[in-house]
C-alpha cells in the first residue's frame, strides 16, 4: 500500500487550556478521516497544527512524505475550513472562492472556469455575485468549502464544519460532504464532536480524549469494538460492565456483580464487557434460553422517535433500543416485569487498563 499522505508522529503541544500529547495518526490518500472527540479534547489544536497555524513542541508532521514542521502554512498546500467559515466579508462569494487562485496568479480564464465548476458542484452558482456577509449558515459553509477546494489541496482540513448549523441543514450537508468527497476524492481530515455526524461521513475515525488519541479504526470497528471505557461510552455503548473474565468450555465468562455474562472471545482477567443497546432484546416472559438472560423490571422508557430506549433494572441496569412498533406490540410498560437478553456474539470484551 502507498505511503499515507498525512503522517502525524508523536506530536505534542500545549496552547492555553488545550493540549495534545504524543498524537500519532496516518491518513491515506482519498481517505475521509474524522477526528472525533468531546469539546476541549485538543482536536482543533491538532488540526491547526497540521495546517501550520501552530508549531508542534515535539514530534513531526509529514505531508506527502515531506516533513512540514518548519513549513509556513502558505507553502503546505492544504485546504482549511474553520468552524466559523471565516469568509472574507469584503469580497463577494466568487471573489472568496477565487482568492487562493489569485494569490497563485493563475490565469483569469482558469480562475473563472474553476469558480464556476465548484459553484456548480456545491450548488451555489446563484450566490456567486452576492456579498458573503448575508448568506445563511449552510450557504456560508458551501462557499467556504468551495474556497478551500479551489486550490486543489493535497488534504482538506475541516474544523467542526457542521456544528454551527441547525439540525436539518446539518444532515443535508453531511450527505453533501460525502458526495463532494466521492466526486473529487480529496483526502479529508474532519474534526467533529458529533458521533452521528461522524458515522455518516467517515471512512476512518480517530477518537481523541484529553489530548490523546484513544482509538483509530473504521466506524464499524470503533462502534462495535471500542478499546477503552472512554471510547465505549463516547460511542454510546450504554451497557458497560467491569468484571473478571475466565475461559470456560471455549467460551469467555465475565463475572460482574453477581452476574455471569458470556462472550465468544476476549482477554481474560480484569475486563470490560460491552453490549450495544440495539443488540439487547426485551421480552415479557423469560425465553427458553439460555445464557445472558436477566429478569428485571422496566425502570424507564424514553421515546426516541423511531426507537424506544428501555431501561431494565435487573440487578444492574441494561439499556435496550427497541423498534417503536415492536415495543408497542409487546405490551410492555414502565414497572412491568421483563426479561432482557443478548447474544454472546454481540458482546465485546476488552482488558481494563
Amino acid at each position, binding site marked *: 500500500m502507498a505511503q499515507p499522505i498525512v503522517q502525524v508522529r508523536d506530536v505534542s503541544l500545549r496552547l492555553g487550556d488545550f493540549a495534545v500529547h504524543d498524537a500519532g495518526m496516518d491518513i491515506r490518500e482519498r481517505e475521509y478521516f474524522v477526528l472525533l472527540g468531546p469539546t476541549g479534547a485538543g482536536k482543533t489544536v491538532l488540526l491547526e497544527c497540521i495546517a*501550520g*497555524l501552530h508549531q508542534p513542541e515535539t514530534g513531526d508532521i509529514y505531508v506527502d512524505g515531506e516533513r512540514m514542521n518548519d513549513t509556513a502554512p*502558505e507553502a*503546505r498546500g492544504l485546504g*482549511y475550513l474553520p468552524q466559523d467559515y*471565516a469568509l472574507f*466579508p469584503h469580497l463577494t462569494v466568487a471573489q472568496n472562492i477565487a482568492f487562493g487562485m489569485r*494569490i497563485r496568479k493563475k490565469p483569469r480564464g482558469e480562475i473563472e472556469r474553476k469558480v464556476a465548476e465548484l459553484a456548480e458542484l456545491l450548488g451555489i452558482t446563484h450566490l456567486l455575485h452576492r456579498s458573503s456577509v448575508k448568506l445563511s449558515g449552510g450557504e456560508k459553509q458551501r462557499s467556504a468549502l468551495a*474556497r478551500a477546494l479551489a486550490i486543489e489541496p493535497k488534504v482538506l482540513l475541516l474544523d467542526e464544519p457542521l456544528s454551527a448549523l441547525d439540525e436539518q441543514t446539518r444532515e443535508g450537508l453531511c450527505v453533501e460532504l460525502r458526495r463532494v468527497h466521492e466526486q473529487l476524492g480529496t483526502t479529508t481530515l474532519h474534526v467533529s464532536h458529533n458521533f452521528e455526524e461522524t458515522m455518516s461521513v467517515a471512512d476512518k475515525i480517530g477518537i481523541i480524549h484529553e489530548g490523546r488519541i484513544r482509538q483509530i479504526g473504521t466506524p464499524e470497528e470503533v462502534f462495535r469494538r471500542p478499546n477503552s471505557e472512554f471510547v465505549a461510552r463516547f460511542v454510546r455503548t450504554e451497557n458497560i460492565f467491569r468484571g473478571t473474565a475466565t475461559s470456560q468450555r471455549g467460551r469467555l465468562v465475565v463475572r460482574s456483580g453477581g452476574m455471569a455474562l458470556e462472550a465468544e472471545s476476549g482477554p481474560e482477567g480484569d475486563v470490560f464487557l460491552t453490549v450495544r443497546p440495539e443488540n439487547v432484546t426485551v421480552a415479557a416472559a423469560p425465553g427458553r434460553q439460555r445464557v445472558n438472560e436477566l429478569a428485571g423490571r422496566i425502570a424507564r422508557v424514553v421515546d426516541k422517535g423511531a426507537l424506544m430506549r428501555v431501561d431494565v433494572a435487573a440487578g444492574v441496569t441494561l439499556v435496550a433500543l427497541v423498534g417503536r412498533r415492536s415495543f408497542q406490540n409487546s405490551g410492555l410498560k414502565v414497572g412491568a416485569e421483563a426479561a432482557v437478553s443478548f447474544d454472546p456474539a454481540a458482546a465485546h470484551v476488552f482488558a481494563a487498563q
Partner: protein
Amino acid sequence: MGGRNLSNRLFVAVLGGVLIVFLAAVALILLGNVWYLAGVAKEVTTGRCTVCGYLYDEEVGALGQGILPGTRWLEILAEWECPSCSADRDQFEEIVQRRTGWNILLGSLRNPENHFAIKLSVLTAAITALLAMVVAIPAAYILSRYRLPGGQVMDTILDLPIVLPPPVMGISLLIIFSTPAGQMVNALTPEWFVTGVNKVFTFLLGHEIEDGPNWVYTTRGVVVAQFFVACSFGVRAVKASFDTLGRRHEDVARTLGCTQRQAFVRVVLPMARTGIVAGLIMTWARAIAEFGPILFFCQATQFKTEVMPIAMFLKFSVGQLESAIALVLIMVAISLVTLLTFKRLGGKGYLW
C-alpha cells in the same frame, strides 16, 4: 402583583431620571453660550473714512497696516492711514454701532485670526491623524496578535499619554529639546524639510510661516504636541478593531497561499477599514481638542501656533468674551459632526 410592578417601574424611572438630568445639564451648559450671546447688546465706537466711506471693523482689524483683529478703534494711533484710500486718521468720523450677540457671532466669522485658527486646527489635526495611523496600524496589529514579553510594560507606556495631565507632555517635549537628544533632532532636521513645511503651511494657512530648524515654538511643533497625545488613542481604537476581527480570516488566507504580508494587505487591512477610519476620526478629534501640550511646547502666538483652543484662551485672557464664545460654538459644531460621523461608522472600543 400590581404593587410590585409599580415599584419596578419607579426604580427604572429613577435610573432614567439620573440619565436625563445629566444629559440636560450638558446640553444646557453648551447651549448656555447661545443664551448668553442672545442677551448681549453693547455699543461699539468705530470710525468711518469720510473720504472713501471705509468702515473700520474691529473683528477684522487691518492686517496690512499691522492692526491685528480685535484692536479697538480707540486703540489705533494717530499715524494710521485709511487702508482703502490712505486718508489720515483725522479724516475719519467716529460713529457708535449697536452690536447684538448675533452681530458679534457673525463678526467673528469674518475675523481673519479665527480663520487662521480654524484652518490651523483642521490641518494640524489631519496631519496628526494620518501620522498617528502610520504608527497605530503596525503597533496595534503587533499588540493584538502577539503575546509579547513585557506586554504589560508596553501597554502602560501606551496608555500613559491618555492619563497624563496635559501640561506634562508639553513641558516634557520642551525639556527634551533642550537636551542633546532634542538638539540632535534639530541638527538632523534637513533644510529642505523646514522650508518645504513652511511653504506648505504658508500656502494652506494663507499666512507667512517662517520657522527655523529648531522645533520648539514652531507651527509644525503643533503637530508634534498633538501627535504624542493622540497617537495612543489611535492605537487603542485600531487595536480594538483588530481584536474583534480575530485571526481566523488571516489563518485562512495563509492556508490559501498568502504570506503574512499578503494576508495583512489583502485581508486584515480591508477588513479593519471601518476600525481604521474610526481611529482616524478619533485621533483627529483628540488632536483638534489639544491645548495644554501646545501651550507649553509651541506657545500661544497669534498667526503662528494659534489653534482654536489657543485662540479661545487668548481671547478670553484679553477679555474678548463674546469672541471666545463664538469660537466655542464653532468648536462644539465641529466636535458634534465628528462624533456623529464616528457613530455612523459604528466606531467603538476603548477610546477614552
